[in-house]
């Protein structure tokens, strides 16, 4: 008679077990995860906070990132490693006074990167933000906002092509 069930009040696995078949439900996975980038510059008005639209997905394991809204809304609760790298540029040399990017969770700033060149304005600032953010797995979302201040009106500004935004879940 074949035995199909072993039932115990407490199964103590004090021996060594080597699983070489398929195991599900053990350990954990680092998904949802995604990586997206800017494909082409995104023009923005100076001195106006603007959501960065990383419009090209390199991958998106769980379809949790929206290229339309620029938001990542994972449907699995947990803590996520989130980072972004953005290059903010002015249209002319030596007019970029200061700039920053902010990592938003819902409507609150989690962290930011600021460059202030007021006495020595340049053309491009490079920003990186990194944080581990607790997400509720339903409504919580994160996004990147950018801001550029230039020396005078009449110029344009942009978020550069190939700026990136990515996240993955950490295993707890």
């Amino acid at each position, binding site marked *: 008679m074949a035995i199909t069930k072993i039932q115990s009040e407490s199964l103590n*696995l004090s*021996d*060594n077990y080597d699983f070489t078949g398929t*195991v599900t439900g*053990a350990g954990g996975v680092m998904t949802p995860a995604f990586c997206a980038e800017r494909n082409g510059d995104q023009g923005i008005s100076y001195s106006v906070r603007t959501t960065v639209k990383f419009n090209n997905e390199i991958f998106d394991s769980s379809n949790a990132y929206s290229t339309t809204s620029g938001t990542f809304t994972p449907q699995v609760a947990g803590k996520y490693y989130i980072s972004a790298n953005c290059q903010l*540029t002015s249209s002319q040399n*030596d007019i970029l006074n200061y700039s920053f990017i902010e990592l938003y969770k819902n409507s609150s700033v989690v962290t930011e990167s600021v460059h202030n*060149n007021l006495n020595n304005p*340049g053309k491009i600032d490079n920003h990186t933000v990194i944080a581990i953010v607790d997400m509720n797995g339903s409504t919580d979302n994160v996004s990147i906002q950018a801001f550029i201040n230039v020396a005078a009106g009449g110029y344009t500004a942009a978020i550069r092509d190939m700026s990136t935004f990515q996240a*993955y879940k950490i295993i707890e």
Partner: protein
Amino acid sequence: MGTIKTTNIETITGSGTLTIGQSGETINIPSGCTITNNGTQTGFGGTMTPAFHVSLSAIQQTTDLATTKVQFDTESFDTDNCFDNSTNYRFTPTVAGKYFIYTSLSCRSDSTNQLVNLRTYIYKNGSELIKSIGTDFRTNNGYQTLNYTGAMIEMNGSTDYIEFFARVDHQGGTNGGVDAGSYAGAYKIIE
């Protein structure tokens, strides 16, 4: 078909191995049960390897505006010997999956007030995949700058490889280099 109710299962003394199930079948742990592991386990979950972290041991000279492969020559660790730190300076992971890849480059001009900007590139299979432009001083030239970038990239676990490049723009065609201590690394994420 039957059920064994017991509190302890042990291997026969000397055998050391307890086999549960066989190929093609499923061992089910019902919802609400808890497995407490006080021993050693292998094969469960996943690992975040291959992984590596490398750096430059000395400044690497670059030519103005030339896109130059960064020759990371010092390994802090390289779990699966997937990074070549002596010939091609590339990461060729032998496990398919998605990898978080990062690099931080610091560069300088040969003299002060000559640096315009630094571009950092991550190449996949010889082609530019990620580009990050560091602070652009333009005509208000600087001397040193730092540029960090990271991205997650899918690798096929056999032929795909990653390399890191730098392009330093100096005023008036002077030269400079990528500083010692610049670094790069990667690790596999568990899916």
